[in-house]
Each structure stands twice: as C-alpha cells, then as structure tokens.
C-alpha cells in the first residue's frame, strides 16, 4: 500500500506537469485569450468586447500589433480545457496518494512534513477546482497553480519523503485530527490565495502601464477587480479556519500535551506571525484609505510567512513541533 502511494505520487506529479503544459500551450498560442481581452479593454480596440466578463463565446477579432499572428484560437482553448481535465485527474490521483498513504499507516496522513505538504497541496488544488468551476474566466491562472503543485510535490517527494510509520506518542490525540486538518485546510487555501494576489499585483502594475517582466504577464490575466475580490474571499475564508486550527485547537492540544496552551515554540511564533500579517491584510483591505495594492502586498507577505512556517521552521529550528522527519 505504501509503495502504491509512492507510485501514485509520481503519476500525480506527471499529471500536474501535463496540466502545466496544457495551460502553457494555451498561454503561448491562445492569442489574446477571451480572458485577456475581456480584462484589458484598453489594449483591444474593439468596443463590442469590452466588459465581456465571462462567456467564452466571443471569438477574438483583432490581433494586436505586438503579438505573433494567432493560430486558431479554438485549439488553444482546447489546450486550456485539456489542462483543466489533467488537473482534475491529477487531483484524483493526488487524493489516491493520500488515501493509500493513510491506509498504509493506519491513521490520518498528517504525521510528518511529507504527508503534511501532500495534504496542504491537495486542499489547495481542490479549492482551486471549486473556484474554477464557479469562475471559468480565471482558467489562465491554472498555469501558476500547476507550476506550484509540481514544485511543492516535487520537493515533498524528493526532499521531505520519509517511510510510512505510525505516529509518535505525542501525536496520538483526538486533537491531532482537529488541529492538523484545520491547519492543512487553511494553509492550502492561503497558499492558493497567493495566486490571485500575485496576479492582481501583476495586473494592476500592467494597468498602470508597466510592461517589463513580470508585469508583461498582466495582459493575459483576469481584470484586477476580479482578482482582488477573489484574493479577499479566499483569505477571508481561510482566516477563521487558521484562527481555529492554529490559535484555538492547537493551544487546547498543547495544554494537554505540553502543559501550557501557548509557549512560543518556533512553530507557534510563526503561526502567530502569519495570523498577525493576515489580520493586517484583512484590515487593510477593509480600509478605503489603504491602497488595494498595498493590502495585497500584505497578503503576499502573509504567504511568505506561511512558507517560512511550513519549511523554514521545520528545517532551521528545533522545537516541539519537530515531527517533520527531517
């Protein structure tokens, strides 16, 4: 069962690579895609298309001067949907990896960093697919989502991998399921929230006339407004879960296991820092006098603190949360 899990991981990664290739193909050959056109009315001199927020029924009309001549756009769109299909398959195989891993270990697959990263990325991809099913226009962000998945799963499989083993006594608690599932869920959504946040910054820079890399990518991502709203919703959804998982369920468990509900263990310090930074983002986003780009930068910093907590703390510091197996 453990070997099956390892093989499924390889298949999942390969499927994500396929998704990435599909998205990249659409990105590269999909001349001024529907999304890009709808989102960039200033660049496309075609009034009929302005504000066409979503329905992918409008065919591209005008090739703009700085792009290569368009191949048949329909084919590029197929590449995009192929990528989405590959992502769905990858997510299913990804789930299979987790389930078989859990079955092999006779427990929830959250016992070490390898399994944790696998779970967080699964939450991320599931949240992505849910958002995508409601909002087709953001399909182009899939390239970055798939790229992140390949990188994270690659790191998990090559660097963080440990053999299946039962939990150490400290992890044998009901709170293991509660605390870790909430942490996995919120981390996954925060990590996904970074994608529209970064795209928003690129897009709004593009809208202000910046054309250098990475702002040049802005031509092909959804409108800044939509990205900003999506960023906010994802963060507003994840924040209470993070509050519950890291700052309520975690301390309840810590009291039973270590005798104190909060002791400034490195992991606790960074959970606190992430919470503070994301609280800052939500405040900044709700304050009209703070620019949206400033607020979104705070969300990006929050994402960096999450990465620090996930990788940095396990690798650089020793503390009570040292279950990573590194």
């Amino acid at each position, binding site marked *: 069962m453990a070997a099956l899990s390892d093989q499924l991981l390889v298949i999942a990664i390969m499927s994500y690579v396929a998704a990435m290739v599909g998205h990249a193909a659409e990105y590269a050959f999909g001349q001024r895609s529907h999304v890009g056109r709808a989102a960039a009315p200033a660049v496309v001199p075609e009034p009929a298309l302005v504000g066409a927020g979503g329905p992918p029924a409008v065919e591209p009309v005008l090739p703009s001067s700085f792009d290569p001549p368009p191949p048949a756009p329909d084919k590029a769109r197929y590449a995009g949907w192929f990528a989405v299909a590959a992502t769905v398959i990858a997510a299913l195989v990804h789930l299979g990896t987790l389930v078989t891993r859990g079955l092999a270990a006779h427990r929830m697959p959250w016992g070490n960093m390898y399994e944790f990263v696998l779970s967080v990325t699964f939450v991320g991809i599931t949240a992505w697919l849910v958002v995508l099913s409601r909002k087709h226009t953001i399909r182009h962000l899939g390239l970055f989502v798939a790229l992140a998945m390949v990188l994270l799963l690659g790191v998990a499989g090559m660097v963080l991998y440990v053999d299946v083993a*039962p939990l150490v006594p400290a992890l044998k608690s009901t709170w293991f399921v509660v605390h870790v599932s909430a942490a996995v869920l919120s981390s996954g959504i925060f990590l996904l929230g970074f994608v529209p946040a970064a795209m928003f910054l690129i897009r709004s820079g593009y809208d202000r006339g910046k054309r250098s890399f990475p702002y040049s990518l802005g031509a092909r991502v959804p409108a800044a407004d939509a990205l900003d*709203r999506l960023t906010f919703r994802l963060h507003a959804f994840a924040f209470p879960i993070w509050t519950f998982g890291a700052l309520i369920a975690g301390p309840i468990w810590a009291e*039973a*296991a270590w*005798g104190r509900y909060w002791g*400034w263990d490195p992991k606790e310090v960074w959970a606190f820092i992430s919470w503070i930074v994301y609280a800052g983002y939500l405040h900044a986003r709700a304050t009209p006098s*703070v620019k949206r780009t400033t607020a979104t930068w705070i969300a990006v910093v929050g994402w960096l603190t999450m990465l620090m907590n996930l990788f940095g703390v396990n690798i650089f510091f020793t503390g009570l949360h040292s279950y990573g197996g590194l």
Partner: protein
Amino acid sequence: MTVVEEKPAPAPARRPNAAWALLRNSWRQLTSMRTALILLFLLAIAAIPGSVLPQRGVDAQNVDGYYAEHPTLAPILERLGAFEVFASPWFSAIYLLLFTSLIGCIIPRLRDHFRAMRMAPPAVPARLDRLPQHAVLTGTPDADAIAAVLRKRRWRVAVRGDTVSAEKGHLKETGNLLFHLALLAVLFGVAIGSWYGWHGNRLLVAGPDNAFCNTLQQYDESGLGARVDASDLPRFCLELTDFQAKFLATGQPESFRATARVDGGAPRSFSVNSPLRLDGANVYLLGHGYAPVIKYTDRYGRSQTTTAPFLSVDGMLTSEGVAAFPDANVDPKTGARDSKLQVAFEGLYLPTAPDTAPYTRSLFPAERSPALLLFAYRGNLGMDAGIPNSVYKLDQRQVTSGRLARIGDGKLLRVGEKWTLDDGTSVEFLGTKQYATLSVRYDPGEKPVLASAAVGLLGLMLSLTGRRRRVFFRVTTGRSTLVEAGGLPRTDYAGFAEEFAQLVKDVEDRDSEGPVNGRTV
C-alpha cells in the same frame, strides 16, 4: 412603529487649547487604522527573534549554549531582551500600544453601533434608480404590505408615509466588535495566568524512596506568578510507581504510560496528551529515561548506593550521566573526610548495547541488553566550593586543574557485574530504574482565555460573513400607482442582486395574493 430620531446638531466649535489639541491629535493618530496596521506589522517583526534566538522561557539550556558559543554577542543580546523577547519591554510596548489603539478604536464604534442599532433605517433617497439595484414592481402593494414582507424576512423596517426603508446585517459590526473585545479578554486571561499561575519541572525516579512533595525546593526548575507565594502551592505528594514505554521495531516510541500514587492513594496512570489532573494543579509527562543504580564499596569496606538519572542523547536512549560519591573513603574512626579521595563515575548507559566494541551507542531504546560504560575519577569533586554545578556532568575545572583525575580506562559493566579499581575499591552495576520528567502546572487563565478565544472566533466569522445592506421602496400615487424599489449593499456582497430580485418578487407575490387574504379576514 419605529420612531425616527433626529440627530442632534453638532455643538458649536470651540477654540482648542494647544496642549489639548496635541493630545487629541496624538490620540487620533494612535487610534487610526494606519497606526494599527504599522503596530501589527511591528508586532509580527518583533516576534521573529523569538523564533531565531533561543528563549529562556522555552529552553533555558539553549540560552546557556548560545552564551558558550557567542561569548561577546550574548551579553549584548541579553541587554536587549533578545532571550526573553515575549517578556521584553519593547515587545510589551508594541502590544500595549496596539491594544490601546484597539480600545480607542472600538469604544467610538461601540457607541456608534449601539446608536445605529436603535436608530431606524434612513429615509428613502430621492432617486431610487441611482442605487446599484433598482426595480419597478409589477403590482401595487401599499407600504404596510411591503413592510410586512420585509419584517417576515427579519429586516429592520421603517415606514414613513408611502416609503419603506429597511436594513439588515448589523450582525457584521456586532461580530466585529465582539471579536475585538474578545482579544482584550484573551489578553486579560493571559495576564491572570501569569499573575496567579505557577509551574515546577522535575525529574522523578520510580520508587517509594524517590517520592516528592509539592514544594518549591523539590523542583529542578520552577516559576511562580507575580501574585503567588511559595506557601500558596497546594499540598500533595507524588510517587512514580511505574513507567511503561513501548517501541516499534525501528526504535520509534509507540506509547508512554506513567503510573503515579498521589498522597499514598490508589495508583493513577497518565501519559503524553492525557495529564494527571489534580485539584489545583496538573501533572504533565514530558519525557523519560533510565537511572542506573550503582554501588560503590570504598577502601574501608563501606558501601554506598546511588541512583543516578542519566540524560538521553539520542532516540535510542544512549544516556550520559554521573554517579558521584562525595562521602566515599571517609575514615570511619576519625570521621575525617579526605577531599582527595572522593570518587565519581562518568558513565554512558546503553539500554541495548552492541555485542562487540565500540560501546558508544545504544541499538534500541528498550533494555534488551543493558550495559554501563564507566570511567572512574578520584580526587576533589569540587562540590564544597558552593558553585552550582550540573548533577549530570563532572566539574571540568577540577579535571583540568588535576584535582580530579581519571583512573585507568573505561570499563563496560553488565547488570550485576563488579569492577575493582586500582586501590581495591569496587563498583557494581546493580540495575536501572525508570524515571520520568514531569511538569507540574497551574494556570487559572486557561479557561477565560479559551472562552474568549471561542467568542472571538464566533465574532470573527460573523464579521467576515455578515453583509450590511439596505432596501428602499416608494409607492407613488398619482394618476396611476407606481411602486419602485432600490437596493444598496453597504459591504462587498456579490449575491446582493439575486437577493434583491428575490425580495422584489416576494413583495409582488404577496401583493397578488394580498386581496384574497384581505377579503377573508
């Protein structure tokens, strides 16, 4: 019906006093969102050294280690409070300012919210078609019928003549305020815990001879809250009767279970994640290890036995420690102690020793083939100098100065084996006892903090999911009756258009069946 309140006219402006103006402006600065955001950021940044540098509150030994590694830098960091970041003046200053800013922010908002909750929704604007949502109704319901529909859907309604104003979503602000008040309550609970809480950590060897009672002197390390006196500690005595550790074939621990007798009562077992909850204190199991029992027979033939807890250095419980016999070789006739003839053994205990040398590492954490590697030392142990010293290590100053000298090479002893030293004295390894490291703690702030955190989470969810919105209806009676509706979301709310359309439809539906009801009543 709801009474429409008039806002009192603003008081006439007075010439401000300069000092008062400065004070007021500083207060406004402090309570502004920009300042709050900056303080939040400072708090996040200030917490970083707490994870990078060793913290005394987390592990005091690591701080000592840092001192040894960075002898010049450490005292400077110490003065900056870098080893106690979360108790340092600068960290406290940031969060106290932040909480002051928070109070300054929520008090006016509480007042405004209280007022808004009691106030009727505002009057209907002149141009409903300018609002984000606008509809002209098909039927001709009157204002009271519209109000009835809205009230049924739990809107707050004000009817003014032929107009209806309604509002919903005050829970958002209620939740927001609740969340921030809960943060204050959390801080208060933490303060209670640090004032009235206490803790003590100690290593407890199994057996009735090693039982301890809950007094400060009995702890290896302890901390009392600011308002706690040593005599306030509850009285109880604890004896570790048994300790069971199970391991997997790989050596990974599977379970730990300690059994203890409190005040001579029936044995109660506790484990990691399931502490021993006593009245007024909890006992937590933090770790475990082995304490070899070593018997030394001196040159006068007198035997002494010591149980020396050894500290584990790896996952296989290879353990290091010292068995000291400061009272060895005391002449029984004169009672004079020869400080040059004190004896100590530095030891390496291997619960599962390899069959052949080198005997440096245990192969398994359970005692499958226990062996004790001893190095004997004779001389002055330096225990009378009054300088505190670790009981797990020999005083290296005595060794380097030559006052304490090693005798011969190390010797591996299995259980029951005896080693005779060059002076005819002998040492015998009798076996081992289990020990557990325990933390005894009491924190009266826990429950208030948990309750506040739960309330805070509830408030947070209300605040993030709540949506304030207003709808207005105007019935214009002229040559023909026209009913108009307008909707205004006060917060980002994507589903408002659907809700508004549904509401308008409900009003229309109710209107079409209204006359029927009217006739029957």
